């Protein structure tokens, strides 16, 4: 049955071949730089100095990874922190986002316009770095804890509005009327009926949120001093910014700077850090993707 439907509905073969060609070309453009990054991360520093970045380096080296592994326990601790922050942060963030977005989606919600504006306004206007820092640190007391990393980036008005839009395009208004006639409460409608049929949207926004948590290094830099809570991205970013800073200010810092710089495999290290960050999240990606490209099964639920 399904197969038949697909066959009827499929595009013609020549068109599909063209589609494949376009996609393959674009995907090559996307993946080659990453392969390049991986190659450089294994390149000997001496080779980079001689011939620059190249797909075919003169000499290979594990020095960059060795340098990172020397962080020892801190590295694994930070890996754990990153996972913990990403999972917990995404879960809480999604819960709050979905509830807020769902209420905004409900046309019969009395304060819909107000709360939409309340959220949207923050997308454009903010107090800036210093006032936000002061509020977080002194008013809310966020420092040196997991909360200090999770809370400041809990909501993103952009994601929230995207979520609302997903509800709009995948949840028919009649469904809610039907549920309310059946006597389903607001919360149970949301959790039992709406969420299951909005999986593609939730998975997408969830993915974006998880990526944001995983990639964040600036907020930990501001609010976390204790090495116990430092996530991976910040740990690696510290190395990166150190290298950059020393290169830029070497004349001011003097001999010590050039000492430190020469002991660093600066270029390959930079790339190795990218690899270490990207690989775990790339593995987590298919989990979300299952819901984003899921073929034809969803329609039947709506009936």
């Amino acid at each position, binding site marked *: 049955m399904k197969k038949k439907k697909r066959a009827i509905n*499929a*595009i013609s073969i020549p068109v*599909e071949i063209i*589609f*494949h060609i376009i996609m*393959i070309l*674009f995907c090559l453009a*996307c993946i080659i*730089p*990453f392969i390049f*990054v991986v190659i450089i991360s294994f390149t000997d520093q001496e080779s980079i100095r001689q011939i*620059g970045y*190249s797909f075919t380096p003169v000499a290979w080296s594990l020095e960059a990874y060795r340098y990172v592994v020397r962080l020892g326990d801190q590295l694994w601790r930070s890996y754990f922190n990153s996972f913990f922050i990403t999972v917990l942060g995404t879960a809480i963030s999604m819960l709050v986002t979905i*509830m*807020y977005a*769902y*209420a905004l989606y*409900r046309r019969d*919600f*009395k304060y819909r316009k107000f709360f*939409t504006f*309340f959220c*949207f306004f*923050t*997308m454009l*206007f*903010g*107090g*800036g770095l*210093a*006032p*936000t820092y*002061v*509020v977080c640190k*002194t008013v*809310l007391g966020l420092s040196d804890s997991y909360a200090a990393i999770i809370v400041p980036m809990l909501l993103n008005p952009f994601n*929230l*509005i*995207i979520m609302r839009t*997903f509800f709009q*395009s*995948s949840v*028919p208004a009649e469904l809610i009327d039907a549920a309310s006639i059946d006597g389903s409460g*607001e*919360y149970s409608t*949301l959790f039992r009926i709406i969420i299951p049929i909005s999986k593609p*949207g939730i*998975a*997408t926004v969830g*993915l974006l949120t998880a990526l944001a948590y995983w*990639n964040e290094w600036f907020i930990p830099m501001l609010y976390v001093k204790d090495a116990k809570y430092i996530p991976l991205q910040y740990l690696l970013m510290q190395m990166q910014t150190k290298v950059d800073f020393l290169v830029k200010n070497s004349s001011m810092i003097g001999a010590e700077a050039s000492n430190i710089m020469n002991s660093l495999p600066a270029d390959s290290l930079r790339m190795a850090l*990218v690899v270490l*960050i*990207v690989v775990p999240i*790339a593995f987590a*990606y298919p989990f979300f993707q299952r819901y*984003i490209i899921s073929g034809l099964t*969803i*329609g*039947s639920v709506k009936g």
Partner: protein
Amino acid sequence: MSATVQTKKKEKMLSSAGIKTILLTSMVLPGAIWFFLLRYLPMAGIILAFKNYKVYTKDPTFWNNLIHSKWVGLKNFKFLFSTSDSWLYIRNTLAYNVLWIILGLVVAVAFAIILNEITQKFVAKTYQTLMFFPYFLSWVVASYFVLAFLDPTRGLLDHYLTSHGMAAVDWYNEPKYWPWILTICNLWKNIGYSTILYLAAITGIDTTQYEAASIDGAGKWQQIWNVTLPNLRPMICILLIMNVGKIFNSDFGLFYTVPLNSGSLFSATQVIDTYIYRVMTATNNIGMSTAGGLLQNLIGFICIMIANKVVTRIDEDSSLF
């Protein structure tokens, strides 16, 4: 008797409407509290844009400093317009944004439809995963890759050109190529992100609509035109509106890092964020940077309001609010 039943029913209706409002409000509340604490409270800092921030030495907390600093009116905004380059960076910022909003929309929607139509789902998933990779790479890393191609002495492209008897191009000193290079870089990095949004929206489309269309005898292209695109409309409109809000913002990393901060390229690479950044390295005045940000957002706000009005005219359901 029937009258009393009716009034009772009405009462019940009323109270259930009240309960509904309360319940829905309770759903919004956690988020609203967060917005209030973390976004609205710090907004008091916006007045920095109109002040000359100095320390109140008797008790230097941020709020005290803020209150006791002198008002300077619009002085902090002056730097944005007093330069001979104002027109240049305004033009660049707006032109790149307009071009990229349109281009990004067309390409992302096309890619989403292509991915959706490819029959081997596994292949489609692979494409989609690969497409997302550039999003992981920071502009700094991307700039190394661009450099590997364009390096004036040992780049791949100049190597190719010279070995084929053509003259090498000094890419980092020739502004005329950079609108193209920047456009390609921008598409390359951001398309995966918006494609996934459209793709998820397509996946969420009720398949019975396609079945109905195909029973009516609509071909694949007609289905795309008559079913897919109309269903994508809310997403397209929302993303458009939100992108329009960033019309006076620019991706600092792209314009600063990828051209390697090369001075000779300014006519093609100077945008508002790079301009403000360079001013800040010279003055480091928190009032001026706040003023710059405020102006960007005000312009974005006005543009969003206009865009939203237009969209509301055309299709109320797709508007932002």
